[in-house]
């Protein structure tokens, strides 16, 4: 699933590891979500939404 994770992360000058630490997941997980290799579960999607203070629909884009 396409998403704006990388853009949002860059706006805040966060590395993948930084975002991973905030979400409680590994850098690898952040990378997999950003590149569309993995779609997060609902709980993780909500945590992403909380971290960026944006609704999920503004972060993840319908195909």
């Amino acid at each position, binding site marked *: 699933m396409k998403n704006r994770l990388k853009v949002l992360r860059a706006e805040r000058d966060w590395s993948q590891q930084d975002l991973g630490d905030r979400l*409680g*997941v590994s850098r*690898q*997980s952040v990378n997999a979500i950003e590149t569309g290799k*993995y779609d997060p579960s609902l709980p993780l999607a909500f945590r992403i939404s909380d971290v960026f203070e944006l609704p999920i629909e503004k972060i993840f884009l319908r195909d």
Partner: protein
Amino acid sequence: MSHDLEHGASVPTGARYALWIVLGFLAATVGGGFAMKSLDLGWTGAAIYVVFLLAITVTLMRWVQRTGMQSGCSSAAITRYNRRMLWGTIGYMIGLFAAVWLFNSGHVGRPWLWGVALLPTVPVLAMVWAMGRLLVEEADEYIRFRLVKQALFATGGLLAVSTIWGFLEQFDLVVHVPVWASVPVFAVMLGVGQCFRWVRS
């Protein structure tokens, strides 16, 4: 070690380094085993070989742990898993050496032989338990997803290899392979799956 961690698009150069490490480990273990057999160094030589295997196993697993932590691919659950597998491996090598030595000594009565024969199995079962615990304890959902995929691939590979070899053996086309070889075959299939993942990434 240079690789594009942020984008993850290119194959990391660490993967080639890792491949040489694994091939070196296999050469040391398998090659060393053949050398031990042909040179016939006796029990002292076998004990030295076991200590050598333990030393390179510990070195390899500590390298795996460090690499995982440096590339952000490790977790507390994986660290615990590596530690449990390391102790399991050590226990297996010692248990196997002890079992073979006791069996060959000829001094073990038949009732006690059951316990001797099962000596190497306890650490192996502990390693299987450790694999299961990893799936339960891993909190990172993507890492857990990958671990499950790897386990499914390894299980499928084991089923395929054992079925093919079993029928070839049935028709006397290949040598008999003992059933306990299923665990090393499973481990090899885990490694093959990992190699596929590296190549595809």
